[in-house]
């Protein structure tokens, strides 16, 4: 990634830039101090500025003093600490991987830690904080190792984010599954999952502080070597820098830092990615910041300002007893998302499009065999999905049901089960098709409705409607989902269009919008319906629970239209996905069809979300897998991807309904659990 590499431009006045750097640092320190001061005057107790002042000067009554000392100060310090360590961890990760998107979030460190902690919570073992953070550290480090190992150190942004988001999705899905299976042990962990800096006493901070310190000192000691890595591996080796051990050490230290943050406050999202991103333009202005030793602490300061600023903002805007219920992480995600989007637009994207996946040319026979096999698998899965469930049925039952002669139980079971199977099938197919279309149009292997924020926008629209109009019908939910999806795609594609849908900008803006919409959905559910875990599950991770046939009608119609268009316009899809110039050389203007394909993709994902919630992964995995199986011509990719998508989600739904019956897991969770290993396998195989 060229963006992190120091620009070799010669700056004449290094003295002014050094004072400039000092001034910027001082301003940051002042900002953080100011935010910290405001933060300790906010809270649920009626302890405002005068009381805090008296407490700090030792003249307050003991009650107020204890609030300041045991609640406000620890919270403030935790905010500082969490922000600082996340900012530094992000800066270090971005430097060693030469990747602007590397952060605890994208390297799945948070997800790994969360998974470790979730496992621990479920076993019911109650360990001291330090020991449980050990578990979180192991989890986080392992996840980071897997992601970096799969994507290759210093390799492209695309692979890193693919591997990272895949593992994040998979791990969080397993964790959420555990939480659902053990709801009593893990009550309220849904909120914890968003990250909150509230503390009781200094114990937590004090126990985590040494870890943070070790991480920081280690990174500072390593800073010169990390600087050398920016020159490229060979140049660094030439300078006598042990490239491999530097990287490994830096990643371990960064994982240590993020673990400290996760143990203390839960995953506070986006800070690790945003803080260094905010420092980066400074590094271009003031050369003092190009060195890691200087930019690390500044990234830490920026992180602290982000976290504290979010906390202050939340408590200033929302009524105090409501503010308690809203995790800080939701706000940092929102703030971070906005920053990220702004940054993405301003950043000069010098990255070239990712190398097109090298695919073997497949013969027609291969395509036909693959399709036939997939159809057979699909039929098998459908039959199994209809027959298997809490109550097992046999084909004769289905026959009776189809003829309207089935008994009461069978009729009911099938009446409720069949719509779920249909919803899963259609949602899977629609998401796969949407992914195929969007990937073709943007020529971006990362472009997936979920990652690009389109699904998130759809969920937000649907949740807004469902919260305000409890008895909304399926068409109006689909309409609201489409409105949300349309809005988010206008934002994403509109902002990324400048400069022609460049890789990083599109993914960054999309990632920002996806995070922002997920945070807003959480926020809406927490504020309007805090005790409704089912609602949260449906809209955040996909579920076919309670679907009826009328609910899937909009989806079915859109899917049919989508398939017809995709098949009819297959040649255009091939051309659009090729490159910018070939169509022009052929004298074709593809602007119109591009827009049409995009609109279709948005419609498909919106109706899929309305029918089954946000099911991640399918739009990403299915087209990739299809291309790997049958090559890149769209008349082959489309049917194979659609079949794969349908099989994947239908299987996920089937497994989710049966493994822990009569309780059930969301299809989205199961999709991630099933999809992750396959996707990672795909990444490994495509590695050359």
């Amino acid at each position, binding site marked *: 990634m060229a963006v992190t590499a120091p620009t070799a431009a010669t700056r004449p006045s290094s003295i002014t830039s050094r004072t400039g750097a000092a001034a910027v640092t001082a301003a940051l320190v002042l900002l953080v101090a100011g935010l910290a001061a405001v933060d300790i005057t906010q809270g649920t107790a009626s302890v405002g500025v005068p009381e805090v002042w008296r407490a700090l000067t030792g003249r307050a009554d003991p009650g107020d003093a204890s609030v300041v000392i045991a609640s*406000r100060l620890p919270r403030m310090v935790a905010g500082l600490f969490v922000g600082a360590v996340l900012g530094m961890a992000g800066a270090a990760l971005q430097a060693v991987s030469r990747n602007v998107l590397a952060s605890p979030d994208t390297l799945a460190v948070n997800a790994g830690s969360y998974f470790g902690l979730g496992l621990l919570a479920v076993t019911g073992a109650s360990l001291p904080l330090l020991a449980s953070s050990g578990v979180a550290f192991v989890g986080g480090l392992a996840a980071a190792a897997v992601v970096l190992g799969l994507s290759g150190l210093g390799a492209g942004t695309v692979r890193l984010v693919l591997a990272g988001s895949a593992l994040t999705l998979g791990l969080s899905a397993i964790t959420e599954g555990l939480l659902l299976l053990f709801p009593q042990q893990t009550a309220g962990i849904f909120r914890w999952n968003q990250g909150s800096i509230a503390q009781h006493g200094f114990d937590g901070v004090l126990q985590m502080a040494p870890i943070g310190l070790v991480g920081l000192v280690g990174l500072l000691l390593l800073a010169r070597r990390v600087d050398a890595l920016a020159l490229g591996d060979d140049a660094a080796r030439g300078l006598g820098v042990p490239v491999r051990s530097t990287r490994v050490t830096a990643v371990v230290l960064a994982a240590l830092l993020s673990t400290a943050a996760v143990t203390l406050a839960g995953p506070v999202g986006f800070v690790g990615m945003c803080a260094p991103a905010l420092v980066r333009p400074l590094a271009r202005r003031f050369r003092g910041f190009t060195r890691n030793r200087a930019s690390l602490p500044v990234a830490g300061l920026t992180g602290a300002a982000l976290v504290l600023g979010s906390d202050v903002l939340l408590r200033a805007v929302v009524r105090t007893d409501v503010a308690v219920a809203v995790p800080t992480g939701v706000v940092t995600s929102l703030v971070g998302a906005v920053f990220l989007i702004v940054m993405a637009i301003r950043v000069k994207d010098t990255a070239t499009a990712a190398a097109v996946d090298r695919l073997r040319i497949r013969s027609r026979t291969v395509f036909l065999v693959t399709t036939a096999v997939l159809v057979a698998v699909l039929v098998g899965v459908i039959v199994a999905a209809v027959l298997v469930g809490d109550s097992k049925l046999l084909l004769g039952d289905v026959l009776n049901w189809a003829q309207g002669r089935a008994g*009461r139980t069978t009729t009911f079971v099938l009446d409720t089960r069949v719509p779920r199977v249909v919803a899963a099938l259609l949602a899977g197919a629609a998401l796969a098709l949407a992914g195929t279309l969007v990937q073709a149009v943007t020529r971006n292997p990362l472009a997936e409705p979920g990652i690009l924020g389109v699904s998130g926008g759809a969920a937000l629209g649907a949740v807004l409607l469902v919260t305000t109009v*409890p008895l909304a019908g399926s068409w109006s939910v689909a309409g609201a989902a489409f409105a949300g999806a349309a809005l988010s795609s206008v934002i994403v594609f509109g902002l990324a269009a400048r400069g022609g849908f460049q890789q990083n900008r599109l993914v960054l803006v999309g990632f920002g919008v996806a995070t922002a919409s997920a945070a807003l959905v959480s926020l809406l559910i927490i504020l309007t319906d805090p005790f409704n875990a089912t609602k949260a599950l449906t809209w955040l991770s996909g579920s076919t629970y309670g679907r009826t046939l009328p609910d899937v009608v909009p989806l079915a119609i859109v899917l049919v239209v989508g398939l017809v268009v995709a098949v009819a316009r297959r040649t255009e899809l091939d051309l659009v996905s090729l490159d910018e110039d070939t169509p022009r050389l052929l004298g074709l203007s593809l602007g119109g069809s591009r827009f049409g394909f995009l609109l279709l993709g948005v419609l498909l994902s919106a109706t899929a979300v309305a029918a089954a919630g946000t099911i991640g992964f399918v739009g990403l995995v299915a087209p990739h897998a299809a291309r790997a199986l049958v090559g890149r011509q769209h008349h082959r990719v489309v049917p194979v991807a659609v079949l794969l998508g349908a099989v994947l989600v239908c299987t996920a739904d089937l497994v989710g309904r049966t493994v822990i019956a009569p309780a059930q897991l969301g299809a989205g969770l199961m999709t991630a659990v099933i999809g992750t290993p396959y996707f990672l396998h795909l990444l490994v195989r495509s590695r050359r």
Partner: protein
Amino acid sequence: MRRLLLTVAAATVAAVTLTACGTTEPAADDAKKTAAPITLTDASGAKVELAGPAKKVVGTEWNVVESLVSLGVDPVGVADVAGYKTWNTAVPLKGEPKDIGTRGEPSMDTIASLKPDLVIATSDLPPAALQQLRKVAPVLEVRPGDAADPIGQMTKNLDLIAQATGTTAQSDKLKQGFQAKLDQGKKALADAGKGGAAYAFADGYVISNQVSIRPYTSGSLIGGVNEKLGLKNAWTVQGDEAYGLATSDVEGLTKLGDVEFAYIGNDGDKDSNPFAGVLAQDKVWTSLPFVQKGNVNRLPDGIWMFGGPESMNKYIDSVVAALTK
């Protein structure tokens, strides 16, 4: 990959053909109808028609289940049986009801296979799920709570369930017993000089190292009972519309002032009792006036805070015992 797909396909097809034929239930026959029909209007305003008093009843929420057991009807299906057994020992399940899954997403399949006469659900279930349930059996939808009149809503639900199951005599007895218990408790508290005492009830949980406190405002069932006992609810925070529950943190407790504080935890659920656990070290907690005076009362486990008259009777007994000790 392709070989794998092929194998999977072959295996599925083979498995399906080998095992999936036949039926698990004979084709429909004409059922016989007897007994005097019952017609009720439930919380959704829908007419619920029953052929007679329901015998095989499924309950999707624990408050409904408790009411059923109290009325002498053993439900055939209960959501999260293990959870009910942990949290509601005041009214233990008598039979061995089938577990129908989680309270949020009870399994339609399992409910259907029980062939119930009646499903009693709360409006906490998604409307679509309620609609589906109406196809398997008559569904009596009750409001889970009403912060405007929590006790009224509880008795209203009890009466409705009693009518549907033909146990109105028992429900009258329960209501009388509850009223008597309230009067008794009020008198006992007044005699001990606790009439009009400022009182706050809460529960709480610890996640990672963070403490959440859930205040029970006057709109909660417990809050309603407290007021009938002549206690003054010290919470000033606003609760939600159905359950009268609010959210707070340890700091929020400083607004209570000098009160009697009571909570219910659960030994079967470690994280449900921060008050005797992590807060012991917390300076904000230890400097609270009611903590310093020792006015923190742990009430016995197993009283379901959102239950029916029997849970509330137990609650009254334990509050009176705690405050008059």
